[in-house]
């Protein structure tokens, strides 16, 4: 068993540099790599490109990097919850590439899988298709999309072990598994780092081969964006 454990977030982020491209898991604030994001803020890496479905909220998640103007370019599908983001984008300070959510997931998956390009119907006939090849299959138009290239992927899992095996919980799974192994180095932070052999081999979502560094995360805030509840009747 190849040991992927590092001492903590500082060792996990070694090699992170200005102008790199990062992938970050999470949907909204659910399943985001909170520890890694905090470390990227602390390291003050500048001019980075972030591939992430959303951009956090003003003061949490990727919003923290936006506040410090660390991000040069965002590749996302939906950024509606972040006023600072919208301001930087509309003023031209921030370069933004908005792409369909399924295309974002599949471009991560393709990078993980050694598939350099694939066809999808999403976005045909829209701005998203501009400058891209299109082609008909079964009477329907599709566009050619390419695998992402990134330096680091930062993901957050529920449980993990020293071999780098990961298990996710609920809808906090989202893009995290698709980003594992999709960048040169994959850093996984976990809520619970278990001894090797505890996780059922049938029930591992991401085998350790896709993960280079794993550490036990700390102080998860797990902020809720839209608290919706019903009254007990």
């Amino acid at each position, binding site marked *: 068993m190849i040991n992927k454990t590092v001492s903590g977030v500082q060792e996990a982020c070694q090699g992170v540099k200005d102008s790199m491209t990062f992938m970050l898991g999470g949907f909204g604030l*659910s399943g985001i790599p909170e520890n890694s994001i905090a470390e990227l803020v602390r390291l003050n890496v500048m001019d980075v490109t972030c591939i992430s479905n959303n951009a956090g909220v003003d003061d949490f998640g990727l919003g923290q990097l936006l506040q410090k103007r660390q991000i040069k370019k965002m590749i996302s599908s939906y950024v509606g919850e972040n006023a600072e983001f919208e301001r930087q984008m*509309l003023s031209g300070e921030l370069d933004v590439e908005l*792409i*369909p959510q399924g295309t974002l997931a599949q471009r991560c998956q393709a990078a993980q899988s050694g598939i350099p390009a694939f066809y999808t119907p*999403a976005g045909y006939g*829209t701005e998203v298709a501009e400058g891209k090849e299109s082609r008909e299959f079964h009477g329907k138009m599709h566009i050619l999309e390419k695998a992402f290239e990134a330096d680091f992927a930062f993901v957050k899992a529920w449980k993990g072990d020293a071999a780098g095996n990961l298990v996710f919980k609920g809808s906090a799974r989202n893009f995290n598994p698709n980003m594992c192994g999709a960048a040169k180095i994959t850093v996984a932070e976990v809520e619970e780092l278990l001894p090797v052999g505890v996780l059922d081999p049938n029930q591992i979502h991401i085998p350790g081969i896709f993960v280079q560094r794993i550490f036990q995360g700390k102080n998860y805030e797990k902020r809720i964006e*839209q608290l919706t509840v*019903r009254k007990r009747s």
Partner: protein
Amino acid sequence: MALTKEQIAQRIAKEVKDGYYVNLGIGIPTLVANFVREDIDVDFQSENGVLGMGPFPFEGEEDPDLINAGKQTITTLPGASFFDSAMSFSMIRGKHVDLTILGAMEVSQNGDIANWKIPGKMVKGMGGAMDLVASAENIIVAMMHTNRAGESKLLKKCSLPLTGVNCVKKIVSNLAVIELVDNSFKLLERAPGVSVDEIREATEGNLIIEGEIPEMKL
């Protein structure tokens, strides 16, 4: 009288059939779940990785690891499953979801839809909408017939950046139920008390009116 948002959702709920997997967009579409008949089996898919969504949690039982595509806390029903985003869009692009219900800023008479961007003003992003409209065989749009200035949102041609082309099959607005056929909006039903003339007035695109147009039943 024009329908409320709840009534639009209520009318759309009648389009949901037994055995359907349904994806609901943010806004009015989310409300549809509240009105689906209880004697049929329907599963709700959320593109962030949930199949078998249930109602909102009771107070104090919310889980930050369990949200829907609108980032709202939810619950799941027995038989539910969680999965990653790539698999979620396998369900959507692979046509395993039977019905997609989503909102729109504009729809054109050939079935184009615009709902993600107002250049220079509002740029929230398309989220999963482009994948949904490009893939779904059965798309119903929930929308207001006109904007706040009273201008039609059912157009000959969309003015805003498109989300998808040639894809909308049906519209339920606050004024009418409309089917998209022959490069036209075909009027199927009127909101209770709304006249055909009012609908014609509110529709910029080509409107087909054949015979007596019944009032919706809610």
